[in-house]
């Protein structure tokens, strides 16, 4: 298989992000450009309905397989805050992890409950 489709897929992603970034700035929106780009790409996918062999699928799939790699440089930023973390260990750790757990539980619990309620009422 040729690698040209993957190149095309990556190009479409860049173009969608560019459109998103431009829209956000032109209209002064408080949303990140890539999130608007995601909506643009979703519209492209709904309209074009590409096959699995298409670059529109293979390019993005490649990037999503290695999503965690892309967060590494931002995560390494922790090393500049080790002193702050040591000095304010309790509020930082408790505020972060307790609130993380509560947010996760609230979202998961509410959605699971509502879905079960609706499935039971049977529609």
């Amino acid at each position: 298989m040729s690698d040209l489709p993957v190149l095309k897929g990556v190009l479409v992603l860049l173009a969608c992000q560019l459109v998103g970034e431009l829209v956000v700035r032109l209209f002064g929106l408080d949303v990140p450009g890539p999130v608007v780009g995601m909506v643009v790409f979703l519209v492209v996918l709904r309209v074009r309905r590409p096959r699995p062999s298409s670059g529109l699928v293979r390019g993005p799939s490649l990037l999503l397989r290695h999503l965690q790699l892309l967060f590494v440089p931002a995560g390494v930023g922790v090393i500049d805050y080790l002193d702050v973390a040591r000095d304010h260990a309790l509020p930082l750790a408790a505020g972060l992890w307790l609130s993380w757990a509560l947010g996760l539980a609230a979202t998961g619990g509410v959605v699971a409950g509502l879905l079960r309620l609706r499935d039971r009422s049977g529609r």
Partner: protein
Amino acid sequence: MIPLVGWHPHETWDWLTSSPLFGLTLTVSAYALGRWAHRRTGNPVLQPVLVAVVVVGGVLLLTDVSYDDYLRGGSFVGFWLGPATVALALPLHHEWHLVRRAAVPLLTGIVAGALVSICSAVLVTRVTGGSRLLQLTMAPKAATTPVSIALSDQVGGIPELTAVLTIVAGITGAVAGPWLLDLLRVRDPRARGLALGAASHGIGTSRALQESRVEGAFSALSMALSALATSVLVPVVLLVL
């Protein structure tokens, strides 16, 4: 006589640490190591992003290379987060029929989750002795990084620290999210995906994608909508709390 070879360790080291090649090679090899460890042990706690951050951070501290120097190469990798966020439309497209049918529970859950995240972040930080500055810095931490940074700046927090807290919240979700959801008996993949995306944005989504395509799709959607909900709710909640 001009010698053909010399020995220049200091010059070479200076070149190496100021070259993008250093941060780039270090990042990719640490990630490869993380993936290898994850596969080899099958241990879900050893998420590649966690292993890679620890390895890269450790190397930088040991070699006394600054974060800014590292970013000369690291930022090449970080740049692709934007296009990767766009790419999250793909799982969403594949599971669109499920997303449409779950619209009302989905939106309710996301707004509830964002409210709980923001309020508990402020209150828990306050009760455990954190200053107002720290509370403001903590408030937007559940939203994806570009949003949390902008919000922190807007409400008067420390944006750089918010970025770090956001990443740690993400890594926590990738490492421990599915475990906590199991504990809470949340088994529906739609609810699990939404929860991971709401509490742990893109990094949580990377873990959801490991579990199933449905979970990944709902997590991607949740990340995007939670970013929206958080940007609307943080300024409002901070007026009250």
